[in-house]
């Protein structure tokens, strides 16, 4: 009888308390949606996964931002203890700001809405892989990409986009902003993706408390609970009671 192949090493989220509840982390090669309302730390969580994997494992990450300026992201992340110039990060974490590209095209009189941005981002990721080592990608955000499409049926575009991403030997995190009370079942990207990490803000008296739940993670026996989610200098934690 031949022994079963050992499972591929997981991609740790480095959220303290979460990885043991994910069987060690996210299965490699997954496409995972990180969703939540504005201010729930979606971008910060996604960036921290790239940042910590660069430092701890030497993984190569690419963060593609569609609307938020690169410099704002770098400053915000440095402010919460994730300085891109820190030792160990080096060239292992790249941020590409497509907002600058869009501004350039717009200033040159080009109609940015004529372009097929879903296809462009896919080809960019393929090309990046051919030119640089690449393990992890964050796309911030799906909403930004949707805003750039004039396709009357973006569901089809999203289907092909996620299907193509799944063929790549990289792990992808797609950030998706949803309204605070949006039912999870309404998330189209979540339906197509391998995993959904949901962040929610709960108001309690004069405080807003964040919660994190892993709603879905294919190939992983995971805990479905929502946990209090806290940021601390340089990382995150879920509080497991």
């Amino acid at each position: 009888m031949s022994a079963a192949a050992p499972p591929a090493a997981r991609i740790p989220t480095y959220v303290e308390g979460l990885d043991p509840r994910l069987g060690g982390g996210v299965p490699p090669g997954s496409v995972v949606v990180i969703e939540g309302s504005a201010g729930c730390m979606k971008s910060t969580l996604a960036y921290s996964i790239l940042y910590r994997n660069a430092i701890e494992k030497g993984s190569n990450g690419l963060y593609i931002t569609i609307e938020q300026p690169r410099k704002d992201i770098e400053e915000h992340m440095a402010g919460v203890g994730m300085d891109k110039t820190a030792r160990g990060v080096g060239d292992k974490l790249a941020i590409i700001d497509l907002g600058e590209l869009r501004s350039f095209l717009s200033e040159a009189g080009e109609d940015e809405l004529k372009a097929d941005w879903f296809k462009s981002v896919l080809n960019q990721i393929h090309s990046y892989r051919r030119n640089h080592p690449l393990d992890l990608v964050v796309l911030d955000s799906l909403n930004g990409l949707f805003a750039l499409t004039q396709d009357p049926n973006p569901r089809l575009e999203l289907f092909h986009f996620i299907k193509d991403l799944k063929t790549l030997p990289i792990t992808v995190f797609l950030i998706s902003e949803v309204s605070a009370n949006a039912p999870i079942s309404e998330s189209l990207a979540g339906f197509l993706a391998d995993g959904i990490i949901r962040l929610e803000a709960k108001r309690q008296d004069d405080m807003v408390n964040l919660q994190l739940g892993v709603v879905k993670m294919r190939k992983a026996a995971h805990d479905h609970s929502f946990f209090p989610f806290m940021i601390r200098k340089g990382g995150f934690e879920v509080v497991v009671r």
Partner: protein
Amino acid sequence: MPDINSQISERVRWVFGDMAEKILQIESQRLGLKAGQKLSPEDLERLASDLRELSEKMAGSELAERVYDAVHALARSEGEAPKKGDA
């Protein structure tokens, strides 16, 4: 053998995506280069510098240097390019 514009586009697609051809067209126009015109090493050098400038805004100086080096290497393979940074 693909033409020089196609070769440049392929070398910078990782930062510009499918907008690479359009970016190249806009930058070429700004430099007064005509479509289909054979580019001299000096033209390529100026293009490389302009693409580096845009890349720096998009991705920072480290990745911008990689863009510049990729186009500059093409300029070198096309003929006698000026020394890096001479443009």
